[in-house]
């Protein structure tokens, strides 16, 4: 299979892409993987720890959309959020199947650093188009108070539940919920206008 033409990637419209996937168009699936695959894989890897297993989870995520396109509701969330929420959830399922969960959780934490190594290694043209937005969000994240940032990263990128984040950071559950909520609101208020969201 040849790579997706750059021009097509640059002009992609995610809603149209999902519609085409619902019509079983393989090129549309390829394009979606080109655009969102790196982040889905990065998140899976950040949670499950191993490259091969992360790739397997990533495949499941895209195949789930392919086989059940009706499960995505464009009114409810962006396709990125849908895919990454699904990736997070499937990665957690995979992780919990393992018997040595505690050991794996340790691995997750050490992988966080490793994962960031890949943050700027995307080579696809589509990913480059998203780079500026991504950098803005990363800068906004860095400006958050440390406890909010840590809570968000553990909950979203390491696949911990709120309760697990609470145990990890040794803070009450209510405080963790508040940090996560405030962190998300802060991101929104800083960036939503700039990035033309909401």
């Amino acid at each position: 299979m040849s790579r997706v033409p750059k021009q097509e990637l640059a002009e992609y419209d995610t809603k149209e892409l999902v519609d085409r996937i619902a019509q079983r168009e393989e090129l549309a699936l390829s394009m979606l993987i080109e655009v969102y695959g790196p982040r889905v894989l990065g998140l899976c890897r950040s949670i499950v720890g191993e490259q091969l297993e992360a790739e397997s989870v990533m495949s499941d995520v895209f195949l789930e959309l392919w086989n059940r396109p009706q499960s995505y509701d464009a009114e409810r969330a962006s396709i990125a959020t849908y895919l990454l929420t699904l990736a997070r959830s499937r990665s957690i399922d995979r992780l919990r199947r393992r018997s040595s969960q505690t050991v794996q959780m340790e691995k997750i934490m050490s992988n966080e650093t490793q994962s960031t190594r890949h943050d700027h290694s995307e080579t696809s043209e589509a990913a480059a188009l998203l780079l500026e937005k991504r950098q803005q969000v990363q800068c906004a994240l860095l400006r958050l108070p440390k406890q909010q940032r840590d809570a968000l990263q553990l909950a979203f990128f390491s696949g911990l539940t709120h309760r697990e984040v609470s145990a990890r950071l040794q803070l009450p559950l209510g405080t963790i919920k508040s940090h996560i909520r405030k962190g998300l609101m802060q991101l929104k208020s800083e960036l939503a206008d700039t990035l033309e969201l909401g």
Partner: protein
Amino acid sequence: MDCKSLQELFVEYQLGELDEGQVDAIERHISNGCEECEREMSSILIGIDLLFEAAPSTPVSQARLTKIVERAKRSQYLIDTGSGTAVLRNSMPQYALTISAYVGSLAAGLLFMMAVSQSGSIPISLQNDRASSNAHLPPSQARTDSLDGQGIVPSDFRMVQPEYRTTEFVSLGHPPSQFRATAVWDPLVGEIHFFGFQFPPAPIDRDYILWVEQAGTVPIAIQTLRSEENGSCFFTIKTPLVTTPRLFVTLEPKDAPVKQPSDDLQLWELQVGN
């Protein structure tokens, strides 16, 4: 719950971490017209959208991308039993007619998929019908019945590679005989495709838990699956290198009282491979 208590759950709601009761409470509250909560939910969602922009990123190799698309192409046949059924249903052997037409169509769809994706000329071992009759047996008896995939080989299915093994099992479940599935082991890529139908197709969206154990002891997959509107579900389990070709498969509704494989529940011995 009041607005404040509900709003504290919004992030977990978006991450799919709440139980059914909490999800219902939130959805009912918002659909009843609470604008404040609707705004709050929308803000949380935008925040999550933004946060995911900063998710870790790892390049996807061309080989991996191709493999996903190839699997998608194959699953197109797996879930679209329409054309497969039309072509192959008339060719189904007598024993297959004794199982439900739904499951028969499913098996035909699978075989059709394999037939079109492979160009070999050696017959496949096809499932037999013992699983159907097991549905009437008490679990203790059913458990001992090995589904060895060595049934009749119909002449119409000679386009499939011998490496594939398919077999069929029927959940005794709660209530009995509600779920039927076909398993196809593809040792070339190390995957087991399970293909299930809830029959009759009610209730909608019922969750099941499926365990696959190697030699009855080592769990290699535990998966929750949900039947869709027409009662179907499809899932693929990637297996590690299986040292024994015999797998034990347990399937039960998620709301069943026991949450782990048990001799008291259906536990089928499924032989895949040689």
